[in-house]
């Protein structure tokens, strides 16, 4: 416990245990007065003052040990060093358009050559209201308070580049800790346009930080975006990631989450299907070991009729890791002819690993096709024996079977260079 916090706050820290003095703390931090006056800021602040951060009694946060993981106060991250070469981070997709963001601040926008139809600008935070319920998830609200820059990525009507956009979040340690990093990105895909976006997080000389990211995606009519979120090797930091997608008519948004070797991750990912014939897919691969906590809360909201959603998560849990999966599907009253599918499968590789899995379907329309399934088990002994009988050692056989298990979701990555990076043993905890 940080003893300083109850009495005199070190200048530059913001307190998360109570939000009453928050504005004052930010002013002491040197934040511009206009930010404090902004309506959106104040709405977010009121929400936090009213509800605070989630307690263990909060159903949405029951298994993720926030009180143990979070510090009472954090120093909001500042810009710092910005020269980072994209090729220093894995996976490195050579052909990609690399957007480097350091501690939430864009670092290389000026270097990006002009790509027709692709607009990447940074601006002040905007928006008066957040769609998230602060009782269930107040972290986008916290991001609204602390994020100083919103990065807007627009794929306009004349965008036709085949290359993926790779957002490289560099999380860079600073002189004092703990720090809180608040990246904020909005992506807008124009009618009929196709985009592929990779977002990866990389800790550089960073321990003891809270990374709280807020992403918004809006896919206009007939557009398509594939969005791969890579959370690898994030140890000693708490990674909280929030992403909301709005999918309009005939559009498709496909989110793909890859989590590996990270100690404390909580993703809240939502897809809202708001017009006819929209599609939202979300795929996840979780490979956890040690004493990690990896929590994925997803929401698929069928607002409009005739939409389709597919969700598939695969977890491989070793040692004493704990995974949490809550997949909500809402089918609103008028969302007839909805097709919504959900599957969560977990492979427990150790007797002390745990999965808390809760499919949650709330269906109010009466002409729909919805399914959900959750299975949990350990490796098939028959298959293991068969492989061993052919000369394959137990460890290599376990790896083959684990790769086979997650293979189905890896195959859903539609970018060849990225998919082949994750085939084979890339996501295994114990490489024999």
């Amino acid at each position: 416990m940080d003893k300083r916090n109850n009495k005199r706050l070190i200048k530059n820290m913001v307190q998360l245990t109570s939000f009453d003095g928050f504005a004052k703390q930010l002013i002491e931090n040197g934040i511009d007065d206009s930010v404090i006056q902004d309506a959106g800021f104040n709405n977010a602040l009121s929400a936090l003052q009213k509800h605070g951060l989630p307690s263990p009694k909060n159903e949405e946060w029951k298994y993720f040990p926030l009180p143990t993981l979070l510090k009472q106060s954090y120093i909001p991250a500042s810009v710092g060093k910005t020269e980072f070469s994209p090729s220093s981070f894995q996976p490195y997709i050579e052909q990609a358009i690399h957007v480097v963001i350091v501690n939430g601040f864009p670092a290389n926008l000026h270097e990006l050559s002009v790509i027709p139809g692709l607009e990447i600008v940074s601006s002040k935070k905007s928006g008066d209201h957040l769609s998230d319920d602060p009782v269930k998830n107040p972290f986008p609200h916290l991001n609204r308070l602390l994020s100083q820059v919103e990065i807007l990525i627009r794929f306009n009507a004349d965008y036709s580049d085949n290359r993926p956009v790779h957002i490289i979040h560099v999380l860079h340690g600073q002189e004092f800790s703990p720090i809180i990093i608040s990246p904020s990105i909005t992506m807008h895909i124009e009618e009929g346009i196709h985009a592929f976006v990779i977002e990866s997080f990389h800790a550089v000389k960073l321990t003891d930080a809270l990374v709280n990211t807020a992403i918004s995606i809006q896919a206009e009519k007939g557009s398509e975006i594939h969005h791969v979120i890579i959370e690898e090797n994030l140890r000693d930091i708490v990674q909280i990631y929030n992403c909301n997608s709005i999918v309009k008519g005939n559009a498709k948004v496909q989110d793909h989450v890859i989590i590996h070797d990270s100690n404390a991750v909580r993703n809240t990912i939502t897809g809202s299907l708001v017009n006819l014939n929209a599609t939202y897919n979300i795929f996840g691969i979780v490979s956890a070991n040690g004493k990690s906590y990896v929590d994925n809360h997803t929401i698929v909201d069928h607002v409009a009729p005739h939409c389709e959603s597919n969700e598939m998560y695969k977890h491989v849990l070793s040692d004493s890791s704990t995974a949490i999966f809550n997949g909500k599907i809402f089918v609103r009253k008028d969302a007839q002819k909805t097709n919504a599918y959900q599957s969560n499968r977990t492979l427990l590789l150790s007797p002390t690993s745990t999965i808390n899995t809760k499919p949650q379907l709330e269906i109010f329309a009466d002409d729909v096709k919805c399914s959900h399934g959750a299975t949990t088990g350990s490796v098939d002994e028959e298959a293991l024996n068969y492989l061993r009988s052919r000369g394959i050692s137990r460890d290599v056989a376990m790896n083959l079977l684990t790769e086979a298990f997650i293979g189905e979701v890896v195959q859903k990555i539609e970018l060849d260079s990225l998919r082949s990076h994750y085939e084979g043993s890339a996501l295994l905890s114990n490489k024999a």
Partner: protein
Amino acid sequence: MLKITNLHAQIEDTPILNGINLTVNQGELHAIMGPNGSGKSTLASIMAGREDYTITQGSIEFNGKDLLELAPEERAGEGLFLAFQYPVEIPGVSTANFLKTALNEIRKCRGQETLDAMDFLSLMKEKAALVELDSTFLQRSLNEGFSGGEKKRNEIFQMAMLEPHLSILDETDSGLDIDALRIVANGVNALRTKDNATIVITHYQRLLDYIIPDFVHVLYKGKIVKTGGKELALELEAKGYDWIKETINV
């Protein structure tokens, strides 16, 4: 090559093998026949290294080593191969990937150089032809969606790839139609050399029309009760297993 001495084994508390004695030398092909429940599959499982059984007495010596002390993968490394009666399906693991891993593990065990992808691919095509399996199946998941006959042919294909010293075929003929039987038998026969040996476990004499044994043993109530040449199989076919039961009970 193989010497089983007075082997007694049980599953939980039920004795299944009650004193098996069997010697197999290089170049020989032995057939083990017997009625249901005689212990044929148990013997095969124990040789493969399944842990469900308890050995209460006796020993198995393979290539001068104590087989029962070796893990399943070590037995394979020593050159033992069991063609399973019910081969398992393993979705997500391609036949090609599985075999390349297995072959290279065994080659490492024998101090041989591992094969690279190109060499492996040509070896696979050559051996697949032996059991008339076409190369598209090599990229499919192991045994997934295979018919019974294809699974058995896949077992013999693996045998061709791994070149074991001692192969044990556990009721390889069960569930096969005449054509599949012929292909499997041809494959087995093509792989016989004067240095390796084979044990064919079977219920029916039919397979032995195609795969001619040097020795036929009859297993009954966990013991080998009669041994003979290939004519013994024909005699069994004509007289049935009841004949054996009567002979023993006398």
